[in-house]
């Protein structure tokens, strides 16, 4: 187990180093950096959605909360001219506050009903953005959300450059993932998984289910709002369609293909599927078909997702080794 942990730490550090060095490797190629930024956003979204899953349910309102973050930040920037550095915390706070208010009645529902109720919330959020034209810009969305500038220690960084924004997105993505990883490894995470495994039992050993559900939902939406603010200032343009149900569905697909049991799942899923998605972009509609086939095949033939591959490889290797060692023993039993 310890050796396995060490291996995991090494490989994740390697991934992080590779991500940090990516701009150098790809020779500051704008397209690859754009893909990198998209991957960072997708990972942040999928991981925060996975945090809700650790309590045993799936929220389809997640993209909606990302939208709340994006709109808050965009409106504060275009109306008041506040910089992203202030806005993103306010955006995340706004998403968390709305999540907190909504989640208290929402948590009365369970299983499929929760899934549907959260779906309704996501859709309402999107339609409200679309309906109030004067305030939210309607279906046309909001334009000119400029990336921020930063000057510290006499160093001036303009985040309109792809490389700078790539590092910004990477830092926040890593922070979100790390926060969720620590949360999952802590006592709180254990409580969440116990609620996942058996709600009634958890209640009987004295866990306040409602409190934990509300807190987890709020925290996840906080991260989604943060991601949304970063998203808005990167794309400089947002409209309600960006934050509709499909965004949540894609995040869910990332989690399912990646794996449901550890935080590695959403990361791997978002990473690999975003790359595959970009590679298939020239094929048009076939890309979506391919996506669908991947999802169905994963669910039917590899229900644990991509994260189970290392374990499978390890057990295969072990089996192979054992077979070789035990071959003479087998021969003896055969002759007897």
């Amino acid at each position, binding site marked *: 187990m310890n050796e396995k942990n060490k291996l995991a730490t090494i490989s994740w550090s390697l991934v992080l180093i590779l991500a940090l060095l990516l701009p150098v490797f790809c020779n500051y190629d704008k397209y690859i950096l754009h893909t990198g930024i998209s991957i960072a956003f997708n990972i942040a979204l999928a991981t925060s959605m996975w945090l809700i899953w650790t309590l045993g349910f799936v929220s389809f309102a997640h993209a909606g909360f990302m939208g709340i973050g994006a709109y808050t930040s965009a409106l504060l920037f275009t109306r008041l001219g506040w910089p992203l550095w202030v806005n993103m915390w306010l955006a995340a706070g706004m998403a968390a506050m709305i999540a907190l208010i909504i989640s208290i009645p929402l948590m009365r529902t369970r299983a499929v009903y929760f899934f549907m109720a959260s779906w*309704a919330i996501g859709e309402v959020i999107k339609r409200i953005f679309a309906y109030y034209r004067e305030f939210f810009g309607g279906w046309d969305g909001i334009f000119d959300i400029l990336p921020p500038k930063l000057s510290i220690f006499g160093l001036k960084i303009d985040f309109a450059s792809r490389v700078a924004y790539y590092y910004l997105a990477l830092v926040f993505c890593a922070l979100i993932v790390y926060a969720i990883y620590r949360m999952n490894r802590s006592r709180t995470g254990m409580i969440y998984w116990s609620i996942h495994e058996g709600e009634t039992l958890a209640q009987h050993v004295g866990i306040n289910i409602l409190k934990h559900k509300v807190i987890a939902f709020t925290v996840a939406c906080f991260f989604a709002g943060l991601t949304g603010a970063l998203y808005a200032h990167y794309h400089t343009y947002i409209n309600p369609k960006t934050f509709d149900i499909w965004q949540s569905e894609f995040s869910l697909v990332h989690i*399912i293909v990646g794996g449901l049991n550890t935080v590695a799942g959403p990361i791997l899923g978002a990473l690999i599927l975003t790359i595959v998605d970009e590679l298939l972009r020239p094929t048009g*509609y076939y890309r979506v078909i391919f996506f*669908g086939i991947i999802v169905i095949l994963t*669910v039917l033939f590899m229900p644990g997702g991509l994260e189970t591959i290392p374990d499978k490889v390890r057990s295969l290797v072990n089996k192979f080794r054992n077979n070789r060692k035990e071959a003479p023993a087998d021969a003896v039993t055969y002759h007897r």
Partner: protein
Amino acid sequence: MSLDTFTQMTLTGVNLGLMYALIAIGLTLIFGIMRIIQYAHGELFMLGAYVLYYWFAVMKWPYWLGIIASAVIIFILGVGLQVLLFRPLHGKNILYSLAVSMGLIFIISSGGLIGFGTVVRGIPSIIKGGVFIFGAFFTYERMVISTFSAILIAALWFFLQRTTLGIAMRAVSEDPEVSSLQGVNTQRIHWIAFGLGSALAAVAGCLMGTLMSIVPTMGFMATMKAFMIVIMGGLGSVVGALIGGFIIGFIDSFLTTIISADVAYIMGFMAIFVILVFKPAGLFGQQWE
């Protein structure tokens, strides 16, 4: 609001409500009996409409036969999907069936865009003309289609209440273990229910396709409506689906006319949210674990 607008809205509401109920009853059957999330229900609705389009508008074969053909083809497709994809997932976490049906949405709707093209098409009307009722214009076509949906729903109700197969289906939806102890072949009931639900969606697709236009992406709208209705009425409840269908139909008809389509959506979802908060299993639903 004048009387004629009111009558117009009521008639449209009834018309929409019946067709929404038709889609939703199919979904609620699948839900209640198999206990999976069939998120791709609207895609079968779309395919059903296209079968009728190719049958009637392209091949010029008879209209009503086309509806039957569409129902039969989608029934077979539904059974195939159930046996291949959904049977292995029975009894597992609902997330898996959600994922598989999501994959189906991706495949079918994009496949539709490739196969059928992105052009908006229409199925030509079979009955022309209309009549004024209290100052509101109501086409004969809408009348025939509403009556047809009502008859279909009544027939389904009779089937579920009176025939052996229907009673077996309700038994499985009530308690799978006990009904299989009583000699009900639950596997058989599962594929029949799935096929039947899909066929109902296909028929609804044919009827709605005749009244409105058809595009390969229209499936998602149907899924959305069907889910709203089913959740409102409660999973597995046919009566709930009928009532929910009328609620959503009336909200759509009235609010779209008076204010706007966005408000109709918002109010529809608000209605669901409020119902779920006060009755967490819908109006008439079963509570799942």
